[in-house]
């Protein structure tokens, strides 16, 4: 890596404050985190703990108040608004809790959307969109519109859209939050397969303890602070207890894999 670290994602002493009316909300407070390439990471914590905020900083949708985010050697602070948009289009796949498909576009058109920002011609965009839809198991839904698809299918279309540009990094904000248990597990399975088979680095925000069985690492946030050591273990244990004791991978904060 350009800066000597072997992590794909390097979050350094990042804070994010929002000003709401006159109050300053500390959504994130001095968070540092490294995520190695080809690693599936969960960001966990109670509602309002800053998970989405951290994810948005990693994906370059938002900028930190302090600190630096470096992804694949690229310090995001050096990019202006348009450069950042272009960078996102090329390097990051986005997955949302509510799928965020465009209702007036078919599955294939939704998946091909990010390719409009490339130089590929129409036939190639179409071909790649279909390939991505096959990867997520939707080869029979090319022409379906979002409203005719189940929640699980819609999230698969969204995943196809996230991988169609072949990005290094996939970020997912509660991708199973709006799905039933069966569909949630299928999505988690799919994400894990993307990591295993295509070497994608995946950062997933979730407070679903089932996710712990699929990820390589889990990080815990509370009130904008990344928990470490004993606190992290206690948070993990609490989740495990709630989930009914599934084996859980250790949280790695050393950044090596």
């Amino acid at each position, binding site marked *: 890596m350009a800066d000597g670290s072997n992590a794909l994602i390097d979050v350094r002493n990042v804070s994010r404050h929002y000003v709401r009316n006159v109050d300053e909300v500390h959504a994130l407070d001095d968070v540092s985190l490294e995520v190695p390439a080809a690693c599936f990471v969960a960001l966990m914590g109670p509602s309002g703990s800053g998970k989405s905020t951290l994810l*948005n900083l990693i*994906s370059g*949708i*938002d900028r930190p108040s302090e600190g630096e985010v470096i992804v694949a050697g690229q310090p995001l602070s050096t990019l202006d608004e*348009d450069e950042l*948009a*272009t960078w*996102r*289009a*090329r390097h990051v796949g*986005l997955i*949302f*809790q*509510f799928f*965020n498909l*465009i*209702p*007036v*576009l078919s599955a294939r058109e939704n998946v091909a*959307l*990010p390719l*409009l*920002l490339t130089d590929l011609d129409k036939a190639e965009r179409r071909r790649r969109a279909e390939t991505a839809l096959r990867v997520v198991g939707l080869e029979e839904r090319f022409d379906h519109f979002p409203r005719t698809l189940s929640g699980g299918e819609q999230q698969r279309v969204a995943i196809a*859209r996230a991988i169609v540009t072949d990005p290094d990094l996939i970020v997912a904000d509660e991708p199973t939050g709006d799905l039933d248990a069966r569909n949630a597990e299928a999505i988690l399975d799919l994400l894990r397969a993307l990591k295993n088979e295509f070497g994608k680095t995946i950062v997933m925000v979730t407070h679903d303890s089932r996710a712990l069985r699929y990820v390589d690492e889990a990080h815990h946030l509370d009130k904008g602070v990344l928990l470490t050591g004993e606190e992290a273990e206690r948070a993990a244990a609490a989740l495990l207890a709630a989930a009914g004791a599934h084996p859980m991978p250790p949280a790695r904060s050393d950044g090596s894999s």
Partner: protein
Amino acid sequence: MRLPFSYSWRNVRARPLRSALTASVIALVVLACTLLLGLITSMRRTFTSTGHPLNLVVLRKGSDNDGSSMLPVESYQAIRFLDGIARNGDDQPLVSPEVVVQPFFRTREGGRENVLVRGVEPVALEVHDQVRVTEGRMFRPSSGEAIVGRGVTGRYQGAELGGAIEFGRGKWKVVGLFDAEGTSFESEVWVDVRELANDAKRPLPFSGFRVRTANVAERERIERRIDDDPRWALDAEPEIDYYAELASTGTTLYVIVVAVAVLAGIGASFGAANTMYAAVQTRTAEIGTLRALGFPRGAILWAFQAEAVVLALIGFAIGAVASVAAAWILSNALGGFAVGAATFTTSVVVLEVDARSLAAALFLAIAIGIAAGLGPAWRAARLRPIEALRKA
């Protein structure tokens, strides 16, 4: 880096009711605009084409239309023998003595309208050579007969071949129908000049002459000759100028129509802007998604601006079809459009929505679309992705 046009188009279709309502308002503006412009154009064409380039209108000095002018017979005799006047096959000078009255006619529906009745001699058909008797025959002098123009036919009680029309002190038998190439003569009734003067109890038989000159140079010469002769106190004017003055009524109307179109257009564009603001509101999360995926502000701006213009173009299409249909119905089924001309008689204008009126309406519709889209498209483009995404 643009979103495909289909994205804008499908979003318009995705809310059919709202889009239809918004487009309908624009369609109404387009309809009004094209019909009024078409009417003005038709009116102008009717009046301007009525004049013949070699004809002179001779009236008494100080009167600006046929109705208020009276001329003695002697002046007729004097003018007939001026040099430079065109002659027919029988070597008769083409000078048409005429008298004009404007009685009320009863319309079929029972209304009352002023109609221009022109007393003429047979030579009138040669001076006004657009006029052609198409059915029946020319009237015979002093026999209470009349011929009626195409615009008059069927519009008033008795105004049909074999019918009888009532005005003045008698009944006039309709023995012929005439056509005049769409000119305002088609809105007239023609009878024998002396008979009409008698009927109207006019002390002097003629209200004016129409003179066909041999060429433009002669027309100018004769015009000056008549104007300058102190014996007659007459005023000659090229016929085309005479009708152009009548047509200029249309110019005032034109200004009014443009003002109304602009005001209505502003109203319609506020309506369309409202629809587009609502679209931005309901699609905030979608806009956030597109921005997060990497679409630049410009792409969002274009997509929403295109949506507003699409709405306006749908409105234009509906309005244009409606106006062509309305013009057809008004002209064909109802037999023309009655307009009060400067002479206070009713002229029947065949309304036609021409390409220029449609082009003006298209321009107006696009302007409405752009104006309506500007604000909402800017709002959409300026949304910050993180905040927009939180609206999911």
